[in-house]
């Protein structure tokens, strides 16, 4: 539970910061919330998918690690051309869930989500594959990209977290 509330706090701060910024700029737009690309509803679906891909157990999962922040920020950066694939993929995923279970993906219980993904309609497979790839990148990649909070995956794997900064690591006698 402590982990969940940590996320809530982090999210609250981001919402607050974004709200302050947007009111200062007098901007508007449908992206109320901490997201640069996702709508709040889309974010719910992606976060649930990420957590299915890397669930919390004795080690934190993708939600705690903030993997969605990696995907969201890359979608307005290096992954810009995947925006429509995400938008339509999320819509199709939720539509398929509604048709089968009467609810969008994020509203289903965890085990029912898992069962849905294990029998995923073929048409949704490319979208899910893409989310798997990006979730793995965010969670196992460099913490600087905001999807591997506190280098949680590296700690889980038992590898040193802090890069050795080697510039002055050794001293060599100067010649002459």
């Amino acid at each position, binding site marked *: 539970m402590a982990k969940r509330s940590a996320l809530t706090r982090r999210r609250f701060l981001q919402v607050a910061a974004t709200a302050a910024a947007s009111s200062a700029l007098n901007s508007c737009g449908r992206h109320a919330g901490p997201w640069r690309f996702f709508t709040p509803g889309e974010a719910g679906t992606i976060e649930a998918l990420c957590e299915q*891909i890397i669930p919390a157990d004795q080690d934190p999962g993708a939600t705690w690690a903030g993997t969605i922040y990696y995907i969201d920020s890359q979608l307005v950066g*290096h992954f810009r051309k995947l925006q429509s694939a995400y938008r339509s993929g999320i819509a199709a995923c939720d539509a398929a869930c509604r048709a089968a279970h009467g609810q969008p993906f994020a509203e289903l219980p965890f085990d029912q989500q898992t069962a849905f993904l294990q029998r995923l309609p073929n048409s949704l497979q490319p979208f899910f594959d893409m989310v798997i790839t990006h979730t793995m*990148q965010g969670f*196992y*990649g460099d913490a600087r990209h905001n999807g591997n909070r506190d280098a949680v995956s590296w700690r889980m794997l038992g590898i040193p977290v802090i890069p050795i*900064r080697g510039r002055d690591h050794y001293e060599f006698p100067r010649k002459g």
Partner: protein
Amino acid sequence: MSLPRVNAVVIGAGAGGGVVAKELCEAGLRVALLERGRWYTANDCRKDDLRNQRTSVLGNNSGPDDERNPRVFVDRDAKRHIVLPSEGGYSNNAACVGGGTLTYGAMAWRYQSKDFRMRSTYGAPEGSTLDDWPISYDDLAPFYEKAEYEIGVSGDVSNDPFKGPRAKPLPMPPLSPTREYEILKPAAQRLGLHPFDLPMLRNSVPYNGRPPCMRCRWCVGFVCEVDAKCGTHNTVIARALATGFCDLRLGCMVKEILTTEQGKITGVSYFDAHDRLQEQPADLVIVSGAAIESARLLLNSKSKLFPTGLGNRFDWVGRNLQGHAYSGATGLFDFDTYDDVGPGANIAICDYNHGNPGLRGGAMLANEFIRLPYQAVDMPPNGVRWGKAHKDFMRKAYRRTIKIMGPTQEMPVFDSRVQLDPSVKDFWGMPVAQLSGYQHPHTLEIAGVMAGKAEAWLKEAGAVQTWRNLPGNGISGGQHQAGTCRMGNDPKTSVVDSWCRVHDTENLYVIDGSVHVTNGGFNPVLTILANAYRASDHLVQSWKGKV
């Protein structure tokens, strides 16, 4: 308007071009060294697992940039894809001072004698242009040695009984062993194999004024943080600049090689760092842009006398594109094999490069560089790709796997090739390279056998589970790209002569991996460096004779 004349223009400051520039400058020639990329230093080492020259999901760290340099990749179903440098299918190497040598893994292999005599040794399989080089190991041996000493190689190959004759040992001792090394060495010996400390273009002791490797895990794909990796950027190019005869120009994209009506090469035209078109007259033009871009430049240099591009009278430019079909195996152990001591790869065997029954060649096998966590996510062999099972596997296996891989020598294929794309242009309006082709079936057969050898080694070492890593049937290329401007004595079946001079021309040379007839069962860079020394040596001799 044209610039003041120089003696030589060298196009590309990578492995080949760096050596040529230094050799020509030290002989007193004035050289313009044109590089389309930038000059990165150790300060640019960012150790970003997702943005580097091997894992480029967020971009490359040493070029080329995605905005200006598309290519077209044609898949096995003849479907065309426009691909960017950071995407799969592009076959990227690098665009920067040092080229691939800035960020490579830096294995420093000499090919074996038989690698220069593949057709004589084995005969070409049907559907392959497998052939002999017009030069032999003995021709190249002194220049291999020069490359080892001038660029800097550590390791100990004295225990490799399959190597060609060599006059001197390597200039630096090997790095100290890692846990993987201690596990794999006795296992190989029990199998009757001949393991040894593989040669690396990496300082193990202070050498050439630079410090030794500090053993971090961010090596292959990254700029070295302590400048211990030896490339052309911190050796020969620095020496070329020190002569005062080398004018290194960055951000310069060569448009075409210029010729007179009589077919004499007069220089090049290029877009400078401000995208202004410049003309650079020169007595000699040396193309060192690596197999894909060198072929593209020759094909883009059309004139009345050379309507299909320079050196392309018999349609051989861009043909025989090859790299290596990497294959091997991964082994899972019930104890920790990981010790976080880089660069990782350090033990090799050459027992299977030749002499495999029914096979034409083979591969050197060595343990892999450290796999960063994201590079390990597709490791599970059982199709598990997500969910708790995947996380469990990562937790269980990440510190307990060893991967052995080898660059299988490819059977060259005439239709695996670089062409000019008919419609897609780069930022400057030049037709881009279009890549198409396939792996010869015999290459895949050899790769399969090599994977089995790797698996057997891992099992002997105590792996509780092993699985094979096999190449696909699409073209390779990438960092090991080679073959597109084949060296040969017959102008009808090659592009350059044995001194790397383009047939039909007097003063145009291609000096890089493009000229490799075959690419050995080894990483090719030391051969590119050695051949550049050899070709430069001849160039200087003939220049002096001329003056």
